[in-house]
């Protein structure tokens, strides 16, 4: 694989080094007007220079020093940064007691001067407080919420209860230099369209799909089952990633998704990174992660994309959850791009290409793929 072309159409490498602000100039929304109701989805207003972004820690604790690269980037983008009271706090393994984290999150959610919230850190703790949050003000005046891992709970909760999009991306403690994941977050926050293009894996199942991206960290998707944050995955593109899990546990969680019908009617499936997989003393679960997952979805027809660059890795690309994307998994390349968004009114019909179109799109690919895979 030619590493240079890993994201050939995403962003020219030379531009990444320049000021990211100059690299893109095609915002999707038009300032405040992006707040129009759309398919009963309220899209938060994209950021502009001068806007204020807040950092809070609803899960694990983060020290202020660890946020320095994040703060530098945000300021570099022309944003003001404010800190919730949980930043720098620590109570046991959390960024404050449950009430402290809840109040901090609530205040920032309700503050009309704050245009986006970037969570400080994942870890564990969001589901201890999420049912205590009041979303009324947020629903009237939504803002971007940025995070992943333990914050999957927020993505799922907001998606299933409020139908407001959120951003799956780096958190406060995850910024380093202005690398490509950082650029992708900038573009996503500021409303610049991002096109992902990556080489296709032989494990992939070809096909096309359009649907909202939902999901996140497999453990948390699993942990939200039957709760108020549980999601309906029908017609959606499900995204999953995980870190530090045993293979048997990944298998078991995938079985739970399958048994609860969450894999039955997907438009498509995107697998991010499954990193730091734990080893048992005598590891007898000697299947690759890809095979463990493939085993659960092999009998469906929707496109499946492995090795998407998101998860617990340095290059964790940002994308929006709860907004329709077009996924095209071909034999050579995979592309993922935001679907065209109608500006006003009309409900968007989510086209489930996976069942109908995929045949015409890549029947030859399917044939070829099935022979490769079964080898």
């Amino acid at each position, binding site marked *: 694989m030619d590493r240079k072309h890993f994201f050939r159409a995403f962003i020219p490498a030379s531009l990444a080094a320049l000021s990211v602000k100059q690299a893109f100039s095609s915002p999707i929304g038009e300032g405040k007007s992006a707040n129009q109701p759309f398919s009963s989805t309220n899209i938060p207003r994209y950021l502009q220079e001068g806007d204020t972004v807040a950092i809070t820690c609803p899960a694990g604790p983060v020290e202020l020093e660890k946020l320095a690269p994040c703060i530098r980037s945000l300021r570099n983008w022309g944003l003001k940064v404010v800190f919730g009271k949980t930043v720098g706090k620590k109570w046991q393994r959390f960024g404050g007691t449950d009430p402290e984290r809840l109040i901090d999150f609530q205040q920032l959610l309700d503050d009309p001067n704050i245009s986006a919230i970037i969570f400080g850190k994942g870890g564990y703790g969001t589901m*201890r407080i999420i049912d205590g949050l009041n979303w009324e003000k947020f629903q009237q005046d939504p803002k971007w919420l940025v995070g992943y891992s333990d914050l999957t709970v927020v993505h799922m909760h907001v998606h299933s209860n409020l139908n407001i999009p959120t951003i799956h991306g780096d958190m406060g403690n995850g910024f380093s230099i202005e690398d490509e994941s950082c650029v992708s977050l900038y573009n996503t926050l500021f409303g610049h369209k991002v096109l992902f293009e990556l080489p296709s894996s032989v494990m992939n199942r070809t096909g096309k799909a359009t649907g909202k991206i939902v999901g996140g960290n497999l453990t948390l998707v699993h942990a939200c089952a039957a*709760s108020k944050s549980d999601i309906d995955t029908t017609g959606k593109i499900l995204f999953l990633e995980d870190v530090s899990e045993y293979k048997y546990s990944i298998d078991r969680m995938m079985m*739970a998704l399958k048994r609860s019908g969450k894999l039955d009617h997907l438009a498509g499936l995107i697998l991010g990174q499954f990193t730091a997989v734990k080893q048992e003393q005598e590891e007898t679960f000697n299947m690759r992660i890809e095979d463990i997952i493939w085993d659960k979805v092999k009998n469906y027809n929707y496109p499946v994309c492995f090795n998407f660059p998101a998860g617990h890795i340095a290059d964790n690309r940002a994308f929006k959850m709860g907004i329709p994307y077009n996924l095209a998994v071909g034999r050579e390349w995979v592309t993922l791009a935001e679907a065209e968004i109608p500006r006003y009114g009309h409900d968007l019909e989510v086209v489930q290409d996976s069942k109908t179109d995929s045949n015409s799109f890549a029947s030859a690919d399917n044939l070829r793929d099935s022979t490769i895979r079964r080898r």
Partner: protein
Amino acid sequence: MAINPPYLHKKDTIGILCPAGFMPIEKVQTCIETLHSWGYKTVVGKTVGSQHHYFSATDEERLHDLQQMLDDDSIHAILCARGGYGLSRIVDQLNLKKFKRNPKWIIGFSDVTVLHSYILKKTGIASLHAPMAGAFNEGEFTNVYVQSLRSALAGKHAKYTCAAHTYNYPGSTVAPLVGGNLSLIVHQLATASDIKTAGKILFLEDVGEYIYNVDRMFYQLKRAGRLDKLAGLIIGGFTDSKDTVVPFGKSVYEAIHDVVKEYSYPIAFNFPVSHEKENYALKIGVDYDLKVGTKQVRLTEA
């Protein structure tokens, strides 16, 4: 209340199999001999002694072994030799038609929680959360916990007691008992083996989990509404609990207590149901009388 399968008589046959993880035949030997000494015959399934990667055999083979024993009228009870992981991979494919007409006791715990829950949900038939083959080894086949399985199979009504624990909530209730391994109980939420807990006595145990993960699983149960309408709660052993580099700051019982302290139903901590030898046979789906006193906890089959 669930339907009790017939209790066993001398010369009845117990089928032994491994529906999840693998187990060498020599580790099942003492269990077989003990069952013989109790007056039962045994039949050993193809999944005992074999290994397929993590499992005792392929999904198809494990399913087939279990299905055959469920359907075989000459087998009067099925003892799962060990847990591990694997039942949720096959349980939805079981055909319980014959079993429903001719129910038999299914014995096991840990991963077998999935089978207990599935059978209770699909057929309303009771099963036995009880020691498996490993618990018979190292001379332990005479201990009260293994003997409690013997009594249960023979149809004797159980009367268990244990010491009170500081976190207990005193009170008493009579209700059907459900539960098992915490990881598996949360694992099957929203699936075909998801059990309703309202009005029931829920018992939970687990082994080798991180404290934060136990905390998360209890929040999961709470958020799924599985804790708020219980008749009672029994917390078994949470043995070999692990902590993270950043300590959780609480013991595993403290963490559980913090999640359940808002409820007013009787709660008993440190009840002898666990992955250690302290593991009384409990009939899932059957009515029990739970009395949590200031000095003692009593669990009696109603």
